[in-house]
């Protein structure tokens, strides 16, 4: 916490970003463990910035970050906005339903317009898997995937991993259980890549209809995801876990005939005190939010001493600062 660093516009502990060469952050599947750790270490420095009386550094002064959100989002959008502002960037928020997107402007037109307006960073949330890859291929913007369809949500996974690492230290050999609607979850996918890269054991647990078909036994020999364990029995999955992450259950899964009833889902897959007791004492409880308390997670667990759900939100800003900082080289 020396003052020179602040005057130089650098967060303390981060002098430069030599190990970071990537132009985009699209998912964690392509990051090396070293790159993931660099983000986490940078986030640690950003956390220090956020703890200051005036939580700002001018590292991204003159950089324009556009948050283009095709899906409603409160926490992710606000988190990116706060992160960009804390680094001194100019931020423009575009919510798809308010913009010309409704007039039939295509994603690529919108992306090219944003580029022509002089932005350097595009933070894109889209309901269609792969949309940020399309934007990355057809523009020179730095693209940050803020969630695409069922596919990936790398900054969420990074903040989950950051939170886990703060409490557990080295993640090698640690058992992390992700419970719920795996099939439609970009959070589960990105976490699977990131956690396994750092040596954690990942267990995905949910009803068979909410697991991706290719992860069910007897499917193609090739791997859809890194090596991990798939369970349909939550009690078994929880055995000896170091952390458990409950995923939000979308109501439309019931309408789609994927589940018989909410009651049955709660009975089989809710993360509650009884099931948590099968994990390691003091095992951490995470949730990417927004929570349906009483459905995928019992309120007494969500608000217990083991819960780090609020801390995830706080850490999200630091992690996104780290991502924006590394992508732009602190100088874009």
């Amino acid at each position, binding site marked *: 916490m020396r003052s020179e660093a602040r005057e130089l516009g650098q967060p303390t502990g981060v002098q430069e970003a030599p190990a970071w060469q990537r132009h985009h952050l699209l998912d964690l599947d392509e990051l090396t463990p070293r790159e993931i750790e660099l983000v986490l270490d940078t986030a640690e420095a950003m956390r220090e910035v956020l703890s200051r009386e005036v939580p700002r550094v001018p590292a991204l002064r003159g950089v324009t970050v556009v948050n283009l959100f095709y899906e409603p989002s409160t926490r992710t959008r606000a988190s990116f906005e706060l992160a960009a502002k804390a680094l001194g960037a100019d931020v423009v928020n575009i919510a798809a339903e308010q913009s010309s997107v409704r007039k039939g402007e295509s994603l690529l037109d919108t992306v090219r317009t944003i580029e022509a307006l002089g932005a350097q960073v595009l933070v894109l949330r*889209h309901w269609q898997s*792969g949309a940020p*890859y399309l934007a990355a291929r057809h523009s020179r913007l730095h693209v940050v995937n803020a969630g695409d369809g069922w*596919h990936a949500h790398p900054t969420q996974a990074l903040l989950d991993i950051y939170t886990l690492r703060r409490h557990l230290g080295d993640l090698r050999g640690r058992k992390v259980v992700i419970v719920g609607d795996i099939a439609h979850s970009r959070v589960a*996918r990105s976490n699977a890549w990131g956690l396994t890269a750092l040596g954690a054991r990942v267990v995905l647990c949910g009803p068979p209809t909410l697991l991706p*078909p*290719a*992860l069910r036994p007897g499917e193609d020999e090739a791997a*859809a*995801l890194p090596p991990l364990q798939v369970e349909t029995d939550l009690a078994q999955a929880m055995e000896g876990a170091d952390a458990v992450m409950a995923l939000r259950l979308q109501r439309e899964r019931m309408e789609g005939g994927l589940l018989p009833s909410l009651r049955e889902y709660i009975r089989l897959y809710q993360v509650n005190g009884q099931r948590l007791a099968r994990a390691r004492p003091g095992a951490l409880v995470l949730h990417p939010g927004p929570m349906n308390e009483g459905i995928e997670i019992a309120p007494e667990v969500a608000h217990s001493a083991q819960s780090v759900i609020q801390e995830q939100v706080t850490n999200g800003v630091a992690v996104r600062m780290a991502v924006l900082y590394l992508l732009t080289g602190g100088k874009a």
Partner: protein
Amino acid sequence: MTGLAVRGGRLLDPSRGLDLTGDVLIADGRIAAVGPDAGRQADQALDASGLLVLPGLVDVHCHLREPGLEHKETIETGTLAAARGGFTTVCCMPNTEPPLDTPALVRWLRERAAQAGHVRVLPIACTTRGRQGRELADLAELAEAGAVAFSDDGEPVSDPALLRRALEYAAALGLPIIEHCEDKALSAGGVMHEGWVAARLGLRGIPAAAEEAAVARALALAAATGGRLHIAHVSTTGAVALLRAYRARGVPATAEVTPHHLCLTHEAVMGAGESPGGLAYDTNAKVNPPLRPRADAEACLAGLAEGVIDCIATDHAPHALEDKLCEFDLAACGISGLETALALCLSLVHEGRLPLLRLVEAMTVAPVRALGLDRHLPGLGTLAVGAPGDVAIVDPQREWTVEPERLASKGKNTPLAGRRLRGRVVCTIYGGRVVWQE
């Protein structure tokens, strides 16, 4: 004597197991003589030494997009693409705008093709009115107007009772029903094969069962009615097994497979890792039925080799750039295939996985027999004396790179962009006229 001679090539005519070096003489638009020195007297000659001389290729499944979708393809551009691919006869699917469901439209299309077409176009008319799947189109009148088969391709006839009636009614006309087999409840919302790639990419999958359930139903109805059923674009192991079982029982169902389902797999959607993030989400590999895993492609190849699948059809589905340059979920389905079909399939021959004669059969006389096209055009798909004077001359060793912008088709949508292929059509003769020569 007058005529066009193709001299000194390796002549392949699988309809009678012919494989010899010699000449083909074409006079008055028909094959006049075949054999060593048969072309000595001709006033016009092409030297085909070192090249393959095949009956003009026949594609029983393509989309020429006219009328109504001329921004994707026209009869003129589509048949030029056909000529460049070695095809001299193409059957076009009726999912145009409006759909080809009236005799007047069928006649219009034939006239238009006669004027603008570079090769022979045989129209396939709708099975149901407006392709709506609710009532039969006027099948007898469509047949009188020149339709060679019926299909709602792009959509299945989902109502099994209606499919039964279609098979019964068309049987009396001696024409096949070509069925696009897809259980729409099982495929709903799917954009690629349901498997590990879809799970990896977070895309909604189309299970193999969506095809197999529909194939099983269609075959059961063919067996029950005795109608002529032709199954379009078979793509799964289970569908091949069903065909094998029904054909063993003597059910006269026929089937086709596309070059892309034989040679490409669902990994093509992911790309080869050169894209940002390592994932291409290649919309040019989005097709219906979707590209499947390797085991399915191998089962289709085995089915083709043994004759359970009769023939190869391109399912040439050209699209405009903007139909593909978008999010994967929104992209149109289809591959522009006429100009790459033979070369892509020749890779199977080069790899020793399919005999050359069987490949040529599957692209000439086999599709003719599958749809009964020789009833309209005796000798079609062969080099028999008196047959239509259609010939494709192929350099089987010539290597070339697929460059979408150089395709004659308006549809530049191919997942083979940049790929090296071995084997190229160097000349196409249709009715005794050279319609393509490199």
